[in-house]
C-alpha cells in the first residue's frame, strides 16, 4: 500500500494514500474539531459535505484554509491546525452559525448532549457580534407520531439527509429552497407524517443539534403512574439494557439489566416485565410459520411463499408497506415482540390478576422511535384501547430516572416479575443484527429435526457486514439465510426477492444499522461505531449468561400455550399474535 508522509503541528505522520488530513491528525492524537462531518467507521457510513468549515486548517504554500475532513494528505505537506488564522476562522464560522440559531439552550431537549453547544463552549464563544441586527430564519415546527422537526435549530450539516437517502434509501428528506429559506424537508414541505418517512429515527440518531428529536411521552407515563385506578405494566426491549448505562457515565457495553429493573420498580411501575419474553413468543409463532412454509414448499406446494421475512422491526414494516407493497404477503404475519407483549398483557395477564384491559396501562421502553408509531396503529387496539399505550425510548427513560432523583449507579440489581418477565438467551439477542434469525434457528432446528442442538451459538450469523448470508445444515437440508441491517441493505435483498432471484429461505431485516442496539431511541453515538460494537458484545454476553438459551424451552412460554393459547399458530394465537400489512404506496391519480 502506498503511504504518504506529512507534518501536522510539527509532528510527522505516515498514512495510506487517500487519507484525509483530519484522520491523519487523529492518528497522532490531534483532534481537529468537526461539525457537519460524521462517520460510523465499522458500518461504512460517512457524511462529508465539507459544508460547515469548522475543521479548517492551514497548509503551507496554499493561499486558502482547507477543510481537513475533505482534503487528502499529500507527500511532504506541512499542516498547522491551530494558528491564529485558523482559530479566528473557526470562531467566525461558529459565530455565523450561532447568529441564526435559537439561544434557548436551557429548555432545549438536546441540551447537554448537543454537538453545537459543546463546540461553542470549546471554541470559547462568549458573544455573537451583530446579533441585535441579524435576521433569524424561522420555520414551522412539525410533530409526527415519533419525531419532532424543529428546523430553527437546523445547521444544514445534512447528516439526516445522508442517513435518509444513502443509508436507508427512504428518501423522505432533502435539502430544499436556497439561501436563508433553505431547510431539510420532505417533498413539497409536507409534514413528516405525510411523507415516505418510516420513523426509523436514524436522522434523530445523527442530528448534532435539537433540530430532530423524539416525541417525549414521559408526561403520559407519569400521569398513568399517578393514577391509582390504573395498573401500570412495563416491558423493556433487549437493546435498552445494553446501552442505557452510557447515559449514567458507564462504559459502553455495560449491562444494566438489574439496575434498570430496580429503577422501574422505584419509579412505581406495578409490574416490571420483559419484552424478551415476547421475543421468545415471537420465535414460537414466527419459527412455526417458517417451518410450515418450508414444509409446504418441500412438498411442492406452489402457494408457500419463501423466503419468509422477519417482521419484528416497525421501521422495516413501514418501509416495505411503502416501497414493496406487492410483496406484503412475504413477511411473517407475526406481530413484533412489543405488540405481542401488549396483546398478552391485556388478555392473559389482565385475566390472571382479575382486571379489565381498560384499567391496565402498558408502557414499553424501546431503543426505537418507530415503536411510538407502531403502538398507535389502529390494528393494535381493541375498541379504541391500544394494546401498548405508550412507548418511550432509552433516552427518555434515563431522563425520567434522573428527573425522579434515583441514584441509578448505586441501585441493587432487581429481577423481572413473573410470568411475563422470564426470558431466554434467544429473546435477548433480538437486540442486535442477526439475533432474531439466530434465535429462530435455535428453535426451528430442534423442532424440524427432532434433534437437540449441540451448540447454540451460530457465529456465522453474527457480525456488522451490511448484508450477510449463511447456510445452516438442518440435518441434511441446507437452510439459506440472509441478513440485512439498514434499510438500504434490506432494499437490495428485497429487489432480489421481487425479481425471483433470491435463493434464501429466510431473511432477517432490521431497519437500523447494527440492529436495535443502534436504534433511533438509543443514547447518541456521536459517530463512534465502537460504541455499537460494545453494545452488541453486551447482548451476546447476556445471552451466554442465561441458563436457558432456546425460546421453546422457556417454562413460562410453555405454560402460556398450555393455559391459554393452545399451539403456536392456533386460531387464538392468530387472533392475538398475528397481523396484516397494508399497501401504503402513493398512487398517481389519473383524471377520468
Amino acid at each position: 500500500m502506498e503511504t504518504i508522509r506529512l507534518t501536522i503541528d510539527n509532528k510527522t505522520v505516515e498514512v495510506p494514500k487517500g487519507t484525509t488530513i483530519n484522520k491523519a491528525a487523529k492518528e497522532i492524537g490531534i483532534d481537529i474539531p468537526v461539525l457537519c462531518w460524521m462517520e460510523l467507521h465499522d458500518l461504512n457510513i460517512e457524511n462529508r459535505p465539507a459544508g460547515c468549515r469548522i475543521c479548517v486548517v492551514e497548509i503551507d504554500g496554499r493561499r486558502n484554509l482547507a477543510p481537513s475532513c475533505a482534503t487528502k494528505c499529500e507527500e511532504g505537506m506541512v499542516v498547522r491546525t491551530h494558528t491564529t488564522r485558523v482559530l479566528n476562522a473557526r470562531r467566525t464560522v461558529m459565530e455565523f452559525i450561532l447568529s441564526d440559531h435559537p439561544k434557548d439552550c436551557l429548555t432545549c431537549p438536546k441540551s447537554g448532549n448537543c454537538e453545537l453547544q459543546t463546540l461553542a463552549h470549546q471554541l470559547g464563544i462568549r458573544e455573537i457580534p451583530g446579533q441585535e441586527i441579524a435576521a433569524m430564519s424561522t420555520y414551522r415546527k412539525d410533530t409526527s407520531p415519533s419525531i419532532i422537526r424543529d428546523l430553527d435549530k437546523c445547521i444544514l450539516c445534512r447528516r439526516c439527509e445522508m442517513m435518509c437517502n444513502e443509508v436507508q434509501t427512504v428518501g423522505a428528506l432533502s435539502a430544499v429552497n436556497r439561501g436563508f429559506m433553505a431547510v431539510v424537508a420532505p417533498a413539497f414541505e409536507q409534514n413528516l407524517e405525510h411523507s415516505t418517512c418510516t420513523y426509523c429515527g436514524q436522522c434523530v440518531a445523527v442530528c448534532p443539534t435539537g433540530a430532530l428529536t423524539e416525541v417525549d411521552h414521559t408526561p403520559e407515563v407519569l400521569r398513568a403512574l399517578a393514577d391509582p385506578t390504573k395498573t401500570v405494566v412495563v416491558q423493556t426491549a433487549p437493546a435498552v439494557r445494553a446501552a442505557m448505562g452510557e447515559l449514567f457515565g458507564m462504559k459502553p457495553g455495560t449491562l444494566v439489566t438489574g439496575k434498570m429493573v430496580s429503577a422501574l420498580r422505584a419509579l412505581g411501575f406495578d409490574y416490571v416485565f420483559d419484552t424478551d419474553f415476547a421475543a421468545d413468543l415471537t420465535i414460537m409463532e414466527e419459527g412455526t410459520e417458517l417451518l410450515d412454509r418450508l414444509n409446504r414448499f418441500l412438498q411442492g406446494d406452489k402457494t408457500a411463499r419463501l423466503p419468509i421475512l422477519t417482521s419484528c422491526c416497525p421501521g422495516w414494516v413501514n418501509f416495505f408497506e411503502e416501497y414493496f407493497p406487492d410483496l406484503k404477503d412475504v413477511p411473517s404475519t407475526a406481530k413484533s415482540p412489543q405488540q405481542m407483549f401488549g396483546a398478552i398483557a391485556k388478555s392473559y395477564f389482565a385475566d390472571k390478576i382479575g382486571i379489565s384491559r381498560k384499567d391496565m396501562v402498558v408502557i414499553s421502553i424501546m431503543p426505537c422511535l418507530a415503536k411510538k408509531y407502531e403502538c398507535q396503529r389502529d390494528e393494535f387496539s381493541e375498541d379504541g384501547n391500544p394494546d401498548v399505550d405508550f412507548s418511550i425510548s432509552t433516552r427518555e427513560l434515563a431522563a425520567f430516572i434522573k428527573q425522579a432523583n434515583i441514584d441509578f449507579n448505586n441501585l441493587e440489581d432487581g429481577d423481572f416479575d413473573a410470568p411475563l418477565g422470564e426470558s431466554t438467551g434467544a429473546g435477548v439477542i433480538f437486540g442486535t443484527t442477526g439475533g432474531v434469525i439466530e434465535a429462530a434457528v435455535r428453535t426451528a432446528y430442534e423442532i424440524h429435526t427432532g434433534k437437540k442442538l449441540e451448540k447454540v451459538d451460530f457465529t456465522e450469523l453474527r457480525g456488522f457486514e451490511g448484508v450477510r448470508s449463511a447456510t445452516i445444515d438442518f440435518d441434511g437440508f441446507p437452510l439459506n439465510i440472509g441478513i440485512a441491517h439498514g434499510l438500504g441493505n434490506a432494499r437490495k435483498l428485497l429487489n432480489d426477492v421481487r425479481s425471483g432471484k433470491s435463493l434464501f429461505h429466510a431473511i432477517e431485516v432490521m431497519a437500523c444499522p447494527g440492529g436495535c442496539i443502534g436504534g433511533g431511541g438509543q443514547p447518541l453515538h456521536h459517530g463512534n461505531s465502537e460504541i455499537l460494537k460494545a453494545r452488541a458484545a453486551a447482548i451476546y454476553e447476556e445471552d451466554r449468561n442465561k441458563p436457558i438459551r432456546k425460546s421453546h424451552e422457556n417454562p413460562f412460554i410453555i405454560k402460556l400455550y398450555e393455559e391459554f393459547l393452545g399451539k403456536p399458530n392456533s386460531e387464538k394465537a392468530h387472533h392475538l399474535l398475528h397481523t396484516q400489512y397494508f399497501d401504503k404506496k402513493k398512487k398517481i391519480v389519473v383524471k377520468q
Partner: protein
Amino acid sequence: MSSIKIELRQEDVDKIKDICASFNNEPQELINVLHKCQEHFGYLPAEIQEVVSQELSIPVAKIYGVITFYSFFTMTPKGKHPISICMGTACYVRGAEKVLDEFKKELGLEVGQTSKDGKFSLSSLRCVGACGLAPVVMIGDKTYGRVAPDDVKDILREYE
C-alpha cells in the same frame, strides 16, 4: 408551498413517461427531464414530480429540492405573457429594481406570482446576456432594453 392540486390526465402521464424514456430514465438526466416537462406543461406541479420520481427512481423530496433550488423551475403556472426582469449586475446597477417595483405596483403581483386572470406572471432572472441594453425586461420572447420605470405602463398597454 405554492403548488396547485391537480389531477393528471392519462395523456399527460404518458407524455411525462415519454420524456423520461427519451432520456433512458437515467436519474442523472433529472434536470433535462424537468426542462422538457416545464417546456411542455408550463410549470411543474407536485403530480408531475411524482411521475418523474417513479420513472427516474429518484425520491420526490430530491426532485422538489432541485425545483426549489433553481429559480428557472416553477410550481405555479406562468401567465399568458410571462414577464421576466433581469436582476443581473449590469441591469441591477442601472435601476432594474425600480423597474421591477413598477411592474409589481402596476400588476399587484409579487415575484413568482401569476395574475388571477392568468394573463401576466412576474419573475426575476439573472442576466440574459444583453448587458449593453441594461436594464432588460423580457415578456414572452420579446426583449425590451433600457427600460425606465416610466416605460412600464406603455409596455403593459401593448398586451391589453
